[in-house]
């Protein structure tokens, strides 16, 4: 299984790389395996993530796409029984090596979660939290500026600028998720990982987040896990299809959805399973 998938992935990615050689590789992962206790959740995943574009990870529930996403900023470290094997490089440095401090890694690779999880603090404090702990800003003016910029980039500023002191938990679900995105942006990361960021939101809020993702692409590299194939098609430039812990196929989003190479991808996107 693993062998076949690997060749598949390489086949598809190879022309991509040559067609747009100018793009920098942000994450370079080879042979990623993840185990939860005895159970193997990911089998030899080889995937490259390119700078300033949106990579969507799709696949049926339990296929390992969230697990893969969480290896990129070592969020799996918080789960005791989880083990990760393989090579995961960010700008050429192995993120699992001793040289990398997980705190710095997560400052460079931000994350937005499935369910909006603002801290039970004011809107202002939610944004200021990251810059403060990383010492990005010290003075009140600096922080004010970061808060405004982050909220503006997350297209939330106009809605909340008059009530920055109110608790972040009082916002609507969609606003909370944009607050979480703003919170991630405030640390000035290079990559933003999004784990099904719209699954708890209504269609209008989802549309706003999708718009936002498209705008953020200019400044950040984005990896998004999504259950919705439409969403993957709308927001991403590249799509990776996971199935049962294998990376089945990866390529330009348009190609994946129109001319998939693998039968399983074909079945999934046409709705035969998943």
């Amino acid at each position: 299984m693993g062998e076949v998938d690997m060749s598949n992935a390489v086949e598809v990615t190879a022309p991509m790389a040559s067609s747009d050689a100018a793009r920098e590789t942000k994450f370079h992962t080879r042979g990623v395996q993840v185990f939860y206790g005895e159970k193997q959740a990911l089998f030899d995943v080889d995937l490259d993530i390119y700078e300033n574009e949106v990579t969507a990870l799709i696949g049926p529930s339990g296929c390992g796409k969230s697990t893969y996403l969480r290896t990129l900023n070592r969020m799996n470290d918080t789960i005791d029984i989880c083990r990760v094997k393989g090579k995961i490089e960010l700008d050429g440095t192995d993120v699992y090596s001793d040289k990398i401090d997980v705190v710095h890694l997560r400052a460079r690779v931000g994350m937005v979660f499935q369910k909006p999880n603002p801290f039970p603090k004011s809107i202002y404090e939610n944004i200021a939290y990251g810059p403060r702990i990383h010492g990005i800003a010290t003075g009140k003016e600096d922080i004010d500026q970061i808060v405004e910029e982050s909220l503006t980039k997350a297209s939330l500023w106009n809605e909340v600028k008059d009530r920055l002191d109110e608790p972040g938990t009082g916002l609507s679900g969609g606003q909370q998720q944009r607050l979480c995105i703003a919170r991630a942006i405030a640390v000035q990361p290079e990559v933003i990982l999004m784990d099904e960021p719209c699954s708890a939101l209504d269609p209008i809020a989802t549309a706003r987040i999708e718009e936002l993702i498209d705008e953020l692409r200019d400044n950040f590299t984005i990896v998004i896990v999504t259950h919705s194939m439409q969403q993957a098609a709308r927001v991403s430039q590249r799509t990776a299809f996971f199935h049962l812990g294998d990376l089945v196929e990866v390529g330009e989003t348009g190609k994946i959805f129109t001319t998939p190479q693998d039968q399983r991808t074909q079945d999934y996107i046409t709705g035969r399973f998943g």
Partner: protein
Amino acid sequence: MSFTFVLGALIILTVAGFYLGRSRSMASAGGTASRLHSRPHYYGYFVALWCGIPTILILGVWTVFQTPIVEMIVQGNLPERMLEGDPAQMSLIMNDIRNLASGNITSGEITPAVQAAADQYVSLVQTSALAKFVLILVVGIAAIAYARGKIAPSLRARNQVEKTMMAILIICSVIAILTTIGIVMSLVFESYRFFEKVSPVEFLFGLEWSPQTALRSDQVGASGAFGAIPLFVGTLLISFVAMCVAGPIGLLSAIYMAEYAPLKVRGAVKPLLEILAGIPTVVYGFFAALTVAPFLRDQGTFLGLDISSESALAAGLVMGIMIIPFVSSLSDDVINAVPQSLREGSYGLGATKSETIKRVILPAALPGIVGSFMLAISRAIGETMIVVMAAGLGANLTANPLEAVTTVTVQIVTLLVGDQEFDSAKTLAAFALGLVLFCVTLCLNIIAMAVVNKYREQYD
């Protein structure tokens, strides 16, 4: 015809009622349970309740009123001249009669009149017991027959049984509430009597506590001073020392258990800490009085400090250890209740574990932690045994924890221990102190609950 025997008969009757009711319901439905309104066993319960409730009521009422009624009859039959004595004399005679009837030693010579009264006492008790037994049997059987007669497939036995059960539950909780109200009322009335003798202003703001009043008019003694401030100060001082111990240790161990400890360690440490709450306070008391206090005194001598052998410090330290589990266990629960998503959100921003705890988890859990502190403080204020043994009795108005102080609870104990008149200001002062204590702990508990509830709403 002992109480247990009658109770046993009653239970057998009730159980029999259950089976009779159940079989009757099946018979009435022609053997098909589906034709019945309720499941057959509900008809059993229906009959059992009909039999059990009135008979238990009869048993209870009869047992309560038997002795007074029998004694009234016996007393009424005593010869004229014996009735003329004063009430104390009368109660002595009744005591003799009771003792004679039950075969105990009597106080003096047995007169024929007393012997006759005792014989009558015995026979009355026997008759009464027999009558009780017969009445219960008759009522029980009659009730079973009546309830059984009512059984028909259309009888809504389940609804009636459940209504009755609900009534029983309500009665039980009402009893609990009424008891509490009764205790509070007795505190209030006795305190009122105290405040008739001593003004509330003097009691609440007076600086001298010396409750020894003259018992007889010719006695030379302290006139009594009821300024409770030294007691309040002593209580607060010891509670403060206790919280200085329990607060940090409890909270930090809660943080360790909730955030750092592996699951196995937590599973072992938490119950171990909770054992601290299960140690009888009297054991803490002698630990404080015999181990900690002398140790502190010796160390004090070594350092050139004058620490009395009964000190607020010793009592406070040991009490602090006792209330650690109140803080740690509750705080641990509260910290655990902070959603995992908040932790992940913080880690995802590159925060370290300690930053996450300090800036996200503790602020989120703060109301609950405050609640746990409040409960611990109210426990410390109400604690008696440790302070009785280790804090001393001297009502010193001092903020120095190295001296002996006394607390509200200790004074209540000393005021009421031993033979006391129950109408002097001295003993009544205990009720006033109790009332103050009750009000303070009640307020603390209400605040704690309000804070904890507010916290709960935040995540639901």
